[in-house]
């Protein structure tokens, strides 16, 4: 694959598509917020147009077909013939979703469910009344053979078009290298010119160097095209709109104006008067060039294309104010998109290697520090202070390297806005989706693995978090529900929040349901927090209650475990009548872990700090025996089973008494707790995670490995896995839950 240049170009086209789709989303969001100036609309249009262009080059017909129609409808807005109403923009969002799907499907070579595509196409067509079909037909002709002359221009033939008396245009077009490198294709432009009338092309070889000097990437030939047409210069210029500045271009009107045909300038003024009302495409463009400059120049900000329908202007402005104020990130993102930062595309493997090397450096530095300490070198010596600086540098390098893999959560948030659109349409609720902190950066791998849990939670917020529209009105709330998704860095972690302004968790219902399912014993008093956490219990809901979307509670256990697999925590806060908030707290990177270094059975192990809720020392008075082999410890009116870590890992046989041992209290996803016995708690420190699976394979109860300051390898425990495997070997039915 890497040696296939075509595959590489194709791959980079799809990467570009992702970027274009992102800017399309940005543009649409801006439009939705009331920013319908021509530049915003142009950004959207150009994104779709560029995707279409690339797709054409790769023969992705589905993509071309959809993008073409989409683009045509957008063009109507660009030309001011269609108003960017909320409904239209909502349809554009759906169009962008479909475009995204088709891009994905084309990339992965999958087939797509055409029902949605066709539905959106139908709606798009309805918007412009079937115009697209006609253009589509023209597009077909695109495949008809076209003769491009490669005959050099000699002076006589160059004069030939001028000799012709019928009106026409003479276009001299010489593409520059940038035109090709930006993915444009002269053939398409020449083909578009053909639509204007009968064309005669001659090839201009004048700049063609000798073969030995030829740089194939640079355009060395140009064309001279004469068109027998009544079309205006501007129409021909439009064909070259997207290569402006990427070619040398001259367009002149030729032909001798006969008595019956008014000359170019004279046609314009009457045209405005006569055809101003007519919806035809051709007449809409005619009046544009000349009559406009004067009135527009009077206004402080000249919108070059918004003028034709004056009615379009006042619509967005008042609606914009309240919404635009809400997401402050909106403005930021627009700026970020505008002032494009220089970026480098790097193979992930290379970064991976750098991350590993830095991990090495960190370990080596720790080893060096240890040796220096052991050598008894005084703290104020040159060696010690040099080491101190080295330490600081290492930490800086480590952070910088980790930041390479970091990406803004923006793409993730855009996906979520789609989820909100789809799920709100499905349950018939009107939902406003607000995001903040889109530029917050997280490790790329974390972003990828967050998509599923977030999707689930966002759906839940729409489906179960928000009341029905009637319910909201009855409760005296605005009819539109609000779902807010935010991201922020907080004390070395990333915190994501999914908030709805719905009715909050109905705790009585939740508790009753849990009792009914036998998940908790009936009649036990529980705190609000405990009841909320019941949502995370596996099997809290069953298929019966699942609506079209998944129900809150269904799969929340899966959400929690996937977040925990990322070293994160998820918590719920809910207030009746006000809403519910899910907070996800994640480490900045998956490469480094906050761990508790412990000793068990003479071996050093690392337990992820996130899974430890507290540590304590076992006292005889708190311990109870249950049955033959199970020991329990009483922690604040709760009995927690004791697990001997060293024994579970097979490092030694069980001890007769665990009195005086140190214990790590581990809270599991399902809210059960276990007390892990260790010999000794050594220290709390950050460790660099090293995979074990690649070199050895999976070990039950062990998540990964790390290298300690003395160069030895220590295993990183997977407490949930260890406890789960212990639970299956012993019989502890529902005991931990009832406790």
């Amino acid at each position: 694959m890497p040696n296939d240049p075509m595959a590489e170009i194709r791959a980079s086209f799809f990467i570009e598509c992702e970027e274009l789709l992102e800017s399309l989303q940005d543009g649409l969001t801006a439009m939705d917020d009331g920013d319908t100036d021509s530049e915003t609309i142009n950004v959207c249009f150009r994104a779709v147009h560029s995707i279409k262009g690339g797709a054409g080059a790769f023969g992705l017909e589905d993509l071309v077909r959809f993008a073409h129609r989409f683009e045509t409808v957008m063009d109507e807005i660009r030309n001011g013939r269609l108003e960017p109403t909320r409904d239209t923009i909502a349809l554009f969002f759906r169009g962008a979703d479909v475009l995204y799907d088709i891009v994905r499907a084309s990339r992965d070579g999958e087939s797509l469910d055409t029902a949605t595509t066709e539905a959106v196409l139908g709606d798009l067509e309805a918007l412009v009344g079937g115009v697209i079909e006609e253009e589509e037909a023209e597009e077909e002709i695109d495949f008809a053979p076209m003769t491009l002359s490669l005959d050099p221009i000699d002076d006589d033939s160059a004069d030939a078009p001028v000799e012709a008396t019928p009106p026409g245009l003479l276009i001299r077009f010489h593409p520059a290298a940038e035109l090709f490198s930006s993915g444009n294709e002269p053939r398409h432009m020449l083909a578009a010119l053909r639509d204007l009338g009968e064309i005669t092309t001659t090839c201009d070889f004048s700049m063609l160097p000798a073969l030995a000097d030829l740089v194939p990437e640079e355009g060395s030939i140009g064309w001279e095209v004469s068109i027998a047409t009544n079309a205006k210069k501007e129409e021909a210029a439009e064909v070259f709109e997207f290569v402006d500045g990427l070619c040398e271009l001259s367009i002149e009107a030729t032909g001798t104006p006969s008595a019956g045909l008014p000359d170019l300038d004279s046609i314009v003024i009457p045209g405005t008067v006569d055809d101003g009302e007519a919806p035809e495409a051709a007449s809409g463009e005619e009046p544009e060039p000349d009559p406009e400059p004067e009135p527009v120049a009077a206004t402080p900000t000249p919108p070059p294309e918004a003028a034709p329908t004056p009615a379009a202007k006042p619509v967005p402005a008042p609606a914009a104010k309240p919404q635009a104020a809400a997401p402050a990130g909106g403005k930021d993102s627009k700026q970020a998109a505008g002032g494009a930062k220089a970026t480098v595309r790097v193979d992930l493997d290379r970064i991976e290697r750098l991350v590993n090397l830095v991990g090495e450096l960190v370990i080596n530095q720790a080893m060096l520090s240890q040796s220096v300490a052991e050598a008894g070198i005084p703290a104020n010596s040159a060696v010690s202070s040099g080491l101190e600086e080295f330490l600081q540098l290492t930490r800086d390098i480590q952070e910088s390297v980790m930041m390479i893999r970091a990406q803004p959560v923006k793409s993730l948030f855009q996906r979520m806005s789609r989820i909100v659109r789809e799920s709100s349409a499905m349950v018939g609720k009107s939902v406003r989706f607000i995001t903040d902190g889109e530029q917050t950066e997280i490790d790329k791998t974390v972003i990828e693995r967050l998509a599923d849990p977030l999707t689930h939670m966002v759906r839940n917020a729409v489906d179960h978090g928000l009341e029905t529209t009637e319910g909201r009105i009855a409760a005296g709330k605005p009819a539109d529900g609000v779902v807010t998704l935010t991201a922020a860095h907080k004390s070395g972690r990333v915190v994501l929040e999914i908030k709805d302004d719905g009715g909050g968790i109905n705790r009585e219902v939740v508790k009753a349901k849990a009792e009914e399912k036998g998940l908790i014993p009936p009649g036990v008093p529980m705190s609000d927090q405990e009841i909320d956490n019941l949502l995370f219990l596996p099997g809290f809901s069953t298929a019966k209650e699942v609506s079209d979307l998944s129900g809150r509670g269904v799969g929340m256990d899966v959400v929690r475990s996937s977040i925990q697999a990322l070293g994160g925590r998820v918590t719920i806060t809910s207030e009746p009548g006000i809403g519910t908030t899910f907070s996800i707290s994640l480490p900045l990177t998956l490469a480094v872990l906050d761990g508790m270094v412990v000793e068990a059975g003479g071996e050093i192990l690392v337990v992820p700090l996130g899974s430890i809720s507290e540590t304590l020392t076992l006292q005889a008075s708190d311990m109870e025996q249950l049955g033959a082999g199970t020991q329990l410890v009483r922690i604040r009116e709760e009995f927690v089973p004791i697990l001997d870590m060293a024994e579970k890992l097979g490092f030694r046989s069980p001890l007769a008494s665990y009195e005086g041992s140190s214990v790590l209290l581990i809270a599991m996803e399902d809210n059960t707790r276990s007390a892990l016995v260790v010999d000794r708690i050594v220290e709390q420190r950050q460790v660099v995670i090293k995979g074990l699976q690649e070199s050895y394979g999976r070990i039950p109860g062990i998540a990964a490995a790390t290298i300690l300051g003395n160069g030895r390898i220590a295993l990183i425990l997977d407490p949930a896995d260890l406890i789960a495997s212990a639970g299956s070997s012993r019989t502890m039915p529902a005991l931990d839950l009832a406790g």
Partner: protein
Amino acid sequence: MTTPDDNAHDPTRQELLSFHVGTQEYSIDIISVREIRSWTEATPLPHAPPYVRGVINLRGTVLPIIDLAKRLGIAAGEKNDRNVIVVVQSGDDTVGLLVDAVSDIFAVSEAELQAPPDMSSDGSLKCVRALTIHEERMLRVLDLAAVLPNVDAEAA
């Protein structure tokens, strides 16, 4: 020791690294040898087969160590400073083989290798690919792929 260049041109000749495991002498194709390093204490892995000594830190890589004597089911000599780890690569897997001591590098041609006797009752024999004679001593040539544990299957 024989210099490697002597036999480089004979395509059927291969170079072997020989080492002691207990009282026996074994060898492996030198192509698969990445490096030889001194013995360091390994971190034991829970639930591992007895011949897996654990893992060590090889410049930041987690390297599993196989106790070759235990793998072959033979009595090992006393552990001492001459014990070494032969880091070998087979396919994508890199592991360390714990042996008593490395003895020689020598070249043999394919013709000098003879098939081991078919003793299917002795499981450890499947690790031996061939036998050969070097300086009047019998040398066992290991089949590296058979020596390395199929960890994925065992973990499952």
